[in-house]
């Protein structure tokens, strides 16, 4: 049967479904559902980390292997620096740009190095929005409580409190830089409601929120003439005798040579790990999202937090094949888009938290109420035409231009036909443990954005990552810059690597894997 025939069940059942209200699951039901169906609870996908700061802790096999991997740098490598700076920012996404701009603004001599181009990151792809409590009926406290509930009460309270309280001033900063957030008629910021939130709190720029913010931040980094190293992949950090971070070694992706950078402090803003395709999941992530910062920080002795939990965004495209894993923004569900199984039934409150909605979609598919494509993929329908039916013709086109265009390129009009979706690997809930200044347990090593952990607990609420990376990008930049005057450049050594290798040897680790991965191996080996 072709897609149009299978879509009919959605069209036929629409009028009946529109009248239905699906209550949210009780906390006990949520727990049961998640434990049974969420990929985080598939024991076979996990293993213990054998050595290092998180020895004995569990994470997915793909990540554990990289964390235990060896460096490509030899012990006798030449560490003569080609560049010296006060603050070295590694990563050119939202957190990296925010960190670089604030450190530069505070007078530090900054160098921003990034694996691909400036701006290449998951940040640029963020569609749904940025959570900031600006509405009169909302407050930072409510934002805190919603996030805590969404994170299964495991969020670091201090990190979370700092983030929600600094949100409004971040919005002001972005507005002053020229970011065009959607407005109400009276000029106030327009807010939308996101999954798991009790109040409308999402600041949006159409469905291009990340793109709009990143266009502006990138432009500002260039306007401020902050020195850049592009196509430079970080492959090792440097440390002094006390184990404090003092710089990094990069691989120039053009000529494969090493570039050594001496820095008084280093801010890792390297993003997440979607491109490891853990448990075989497709991903919504950027090509460069291979978790490099986690491996680098771990070898340096930084402790990781919550790295056994990942976010599977409920709605990744399953059809057409060209869009596999790409996001179908949560905004569609926030505006009333319904999830429908092969029988034409709704099965979850679409605005429940992401882990609950993802688990329920997986349940439908595992119990035979999914729709299978010829490529063997399974999904459920997201009733996108419902938005036009509910709010008037043209709603989908007006509110979701990016999505319309994405599907239109492959001949699908999402305002007329529902789309097929299944959870896609979207976000790394945990990461390197940081304090409220974004610093790790390794002195002068800061981590900001998705590579850091603790803030989101076991599940991130929609829109909290854009705020996370702005707040902790800023705090890392300001803290690092604030230390410059009172510090000397530390020695450039690989002593942490000697320690790590000795530890690995003691635990019999002979995996032969080199980390970080740098880029995913998609290129077919043509014999």
């Amino acid at each position, binding site marked *: *049967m*072709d*897609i149009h025939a299978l879509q009919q069940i959605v069209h036929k059942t629409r009028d009946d479904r529109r009248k239905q209200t699906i209550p949210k699951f009780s906390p006990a039901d949520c727990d049961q559902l998640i434990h049974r169906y969420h990929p985080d609870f598939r024991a076979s996908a996990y293993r213990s980390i054998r050595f290092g700061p998180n020895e004995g802790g569990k994470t997915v096999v793909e990540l554990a292997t990289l964390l235990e991997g060896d460096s490509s740098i030899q012990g006798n490598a030449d560490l003569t620096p080609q560049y010296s700076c006060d603050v070295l920012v590694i990563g050119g996404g939202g957190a990296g740009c925010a960190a670089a701009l604030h450190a530069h603004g505070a007078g530090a001599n900054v160098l921003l190095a990034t694996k*691909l*181009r400036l701006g*290449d990151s*998951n940040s*640029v*792809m963020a569609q749904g929005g940025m959570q900031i409590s*600006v509405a*009169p009926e909302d407050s*930072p*406290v409510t934002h805190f*409580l*919603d996030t805590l*509930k969404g994170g299964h*009460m495991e969020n670091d309270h201090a990190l979370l409190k700092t983030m929600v309280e600094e949100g*409004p*001033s971040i919005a*002001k900063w972005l*507005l*002053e*830089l020229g*970011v*065009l957030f959607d*407005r109400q008629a*009276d*000029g*106030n*910021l327009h807010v939308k409601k996101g999954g798991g939130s009790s109040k409308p709190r999402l600041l949006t720029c159409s469905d*291009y929120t*990340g*793109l709009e913010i990143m*266009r502006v931040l990138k*432009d*500002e980094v*260039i*306007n401020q003439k902050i020195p850049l190293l592009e*196509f430079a992949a970080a492959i090792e950090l440097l440390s002094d005798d006390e184990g404090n971070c003092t710089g990094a070694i990069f691989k120039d*992706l053009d000529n494969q040579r090493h570039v050594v950078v001496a820095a008084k402090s280093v801010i890792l803003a390297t993003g997440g790990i979607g491109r490891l395709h853990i448990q075989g999941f497709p991903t919504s992530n*950027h*090509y460069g999202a291979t978790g490099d910062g986690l491996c680098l920080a771990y070898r340096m002795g930084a402790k990781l937090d919550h790295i056994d939990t990942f976010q599977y965004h409920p709605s990744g495209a399953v*059809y057409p*094949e*060209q869009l596999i894993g*790409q*996001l179908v923004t949560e905004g569609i569900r926030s505006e009333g888009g319904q999830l429908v199984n092969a029988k034409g039934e709704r099965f979850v409150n679409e605005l429940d938290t992401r882990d609950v909605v993802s688990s329920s979609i997986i349940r439908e*598919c*595992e*119990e035979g109420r*999914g*729709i*299978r494509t*010829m490529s063997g993929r399974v999904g459920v329908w997201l009733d996108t035409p419902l938005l036009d039916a509910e709010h008037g013709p043209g709603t989908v086109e007006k509110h979701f*231009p990016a999505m319309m265009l994405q599907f239109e*390129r492959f001949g699908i009009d999402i305002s007329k036909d529902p789309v097929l979706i299944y959870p896609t690997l979207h976000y790394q809930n945990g990461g390197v443990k940081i304090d409220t200044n974004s610093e790790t347990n390794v002195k002068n090593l800061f981590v900001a954005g998705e590579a850091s952990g603790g803030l989101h607990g076991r599940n991130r609420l929609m829109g909290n990552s854009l705020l996370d990376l702005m707040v902790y990008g800023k705090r890392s930049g300001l803290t690092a810059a604030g230390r410059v005057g009172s510090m000397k450049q530390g020695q450039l050594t690989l002593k942490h690597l000697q320690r790590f290798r000795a530890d690995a040897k003691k635990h019999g680790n002979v995996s032969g894997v080199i980390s970080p991965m740098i880029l995913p191996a*998609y*290129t*077919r*080996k043509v014999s």
Partner: protein
Amino acid sequence: MAQDDTNLIDQPEVMKPRMVTIEIAGKKVDVPEGITVVKAMWYAGIDVVRGVGCLGGFCGACATYYRTKDDPKVRTCLACQMAVQDGMSFTMMPSFPARKATYDIQALKDPKQDLFNLYPETPLCRNCNACTEACPQKIDVREGVWKAVFGDFKSVSEMFMDCVMCGMCTPVCIADIAPNLVALYVSRAQGAHFTKKPIGLDTRIKEIQDGQYQDAWNTILKMSEKELADHCATVK
């Protein structure tokens, strides 16, 4: 899987891929029909470092020129958002040496006039429409350039919200304008100088600075785990 076999979506190109012959930067290769241009390069054994980014149509890294069989017209696309077809020929666009003006956005005194100092070529648009035809995001780029010149910054900022900065509009411009960079300046100026300040935001910032939420924080942060969980459950 216990599933009704009629619940299938017909995608023969995936199950039994029909191979097509395409030309990548002048070299003929056979790849499965319907895969994206980027995936076709991977399939052909080509490592892509420059020219690959978000893979979702948002970052503009994969600007590509292509031509289809029997059509002399060279067109543009984002390589991650275009399916290959038999006889197609393509090559990626290297980073184009467009000039980006630098400025202090907040210090601008007369942003509409400053456009002519920062990008003096903008009024030289000769209305040829090549930029609009080159835009993979379907933006009416030419119209945007004219609106920028006439000071309608608000319209430009709305029209270019979809711009992924792929830069495909720039090499085709006979007046040497970089429309995407002009639009970026105009959008930022619109946001920073011509958009009403949201009063509610200032109010909230002041509330936080004045410690209006301090009592609530004191209460919450003293709670036991159980009390806090119960309290969270009451938030509706």
